[in-house]
């Protein structure tokens, strides 16, 4: 499984309140909610992510609330993958469940520049930086989570299983 795009860099401890503030979780119009993603923290996020595609975070990306709207809105606005030094546990599960690929890699935040062209080899746990020519080793996802990403997320797997049983 390959995923490619340009890097949009972020810092450490990006929390889910910053990704989508609590007061917008109730909006049924996702385009409207999308206007508030990273409000006051990353200006013009929705346009930036459309041209970039890959978020490069630091430590503890996605900490805080269990709101699945955080990865849901990132994906909705065009995020193709998130790579970070480390992820908070609930965000990690929620993202894979929604079919949003994640890779944990301790080198990314020090070595990747904003706008670098990246290619993520999810199956082998490798991130290739096509701009600098470097390759970084990431933590390989367990086989059953890779399978979940290939299927397009946990709900698709659940539907498949409930049809089979």
């Amino acid at each position: 499984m390959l995923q490619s795009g340009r890097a949009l860099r972020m810092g450490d401890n990006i929390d889910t309140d910053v990704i989508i503030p609590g007061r917008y979780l109730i909006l049924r119009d996702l385009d409207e909610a999308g206007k508030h993603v990273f409000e006051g923290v990353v200006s013009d996020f929705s346009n930036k992510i459309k041209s970039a595609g890959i978020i490069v975070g630091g430590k503890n990306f996605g900490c805080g609330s269990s709101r699945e709207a955080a990865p849901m809105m990132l994906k909705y606005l065009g995020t193709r993958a998130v790579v970070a030094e480390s992820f908070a546990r609930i965000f990690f599960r929620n993202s894979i469940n929604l079919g949003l690929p994640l890779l944990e890699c301790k080198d990314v935040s020090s070595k990747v520049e904003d706008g670098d062209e990246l290619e993520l080899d999810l199956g082998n746990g490798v991130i290739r930086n096509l701009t600098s020519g470097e390759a970084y080793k990431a933590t390989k996802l367990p086989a059953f989570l890779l399978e979940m990403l290939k299927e397009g997320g946990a709900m698709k797997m659940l539907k498949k299983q409930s049809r089979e049983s």
Partner: protein
Amino acid sequence: MGMTIAEKILASHSGVKEVTAGEIVNASVDLAFVHEMLGMPGGTAELFRKAGLRRVWDPSKIVALLDHWTPPSTIDVAEIHLTCRNFVKEHGIKNWYDMKEGICHQILSEKGHALPGELIVGSDSHTITSGAFGAFASGIGSTDMTIVFTTGKLWFKVPETIKLTIDGKIPPYIMGKDIILHILGEMGAEGANYKSIEFYGEAIRQTSIDSRMTMTNMCAEVGAKTAIIPPDQKTLDYLMERTNKALKPILASEDAQYTEQICLNIDRLEPQVAIPPSPCSATSISQVEGKPIDVAFIGSCTNGRLEDMMVTSRILKGRNVADSVRLIVIPASREVAVNSLKMGYLEPILEAGGIIEGSTCGPCMGGHMGVLASGETAISTANRNFIGRMGHQTSKIYLASPATVAASAVTGKITDPRKMVVN
């Protein structure tokens, strides 16, 4: 080989004798709870319906309630509540608490749903609170909840466990909140990411059930998967009034393997304040004393319990809230509100100029009932002070105990509660 409490609970719920940290298990859940997340866009009701799923695995093992935006503040919220009620009716969910009861983690304990040795999941990161009763309780998202609603099971990576020992005698005016803010400051924002925390030590034994819930609650801020206080007589006394079920406390083996041991002594602990924008940035109050505030908030799943109302009331008795401050007090449940009323705790708060609201999460996540304007500063008993958490992106939140927040409400600036003589 010996096991920690988290390992024992995951093993017994996965039908195996033994598990070790790092192993992935598929475990049967005893209790799953949902709040408004059930009816939100992308929530479990929507996922369930879109996937064409028909029946929940066991309606008696699900708790559903409304707490975040109660009563509804907008039509969007009212529609979310309606979606929740319809789902509950359609699936015959037995344990349904409409908006009159209070905040989920408090209700779980009051209604006897949080029991030792049980595996609990909830659609809220502070589900971890129920570890105060010896349960393995963990927050999950809407998709995981849909999987649990359908199958009754969920995969877990067995966490490594940190043994946290808190010794010493709790000093006057120091609350569970000060202890946990100090612990979080020592551990850092990902100090327990993916891990379980077990609490030991003489200071923990001294704490009330209310304070214990404050402490397990905030372990979410260091990323913990679960945080467990081994049940003692206090736990059993509390629970026996609230459930007829047999109580089966699970304790760790003497030779359990811990990934890390942290020992702290709180003999000389001062009131703690977490400075924005991290709950893990505790400092002693002397470092921030005198900082002006606009809003003082006492409530939330962290500090809206009877003990918190008592302390607030004692500090405010015979005093006035500063003219420059809005003090908002929200008991965590109807039971807390009724007991506070009976004990006479509410009158001094109202007389001092505090505003008491019906039980809700409200301003804690910037939902309603007192959000912050640009540039404003709040001191709050809640659990998070992230950027924009309670309102405008430029507002700031300091986290502290109810004693510190009440004292600060009186003076209009961050104040050491030890300087307030209580009559």
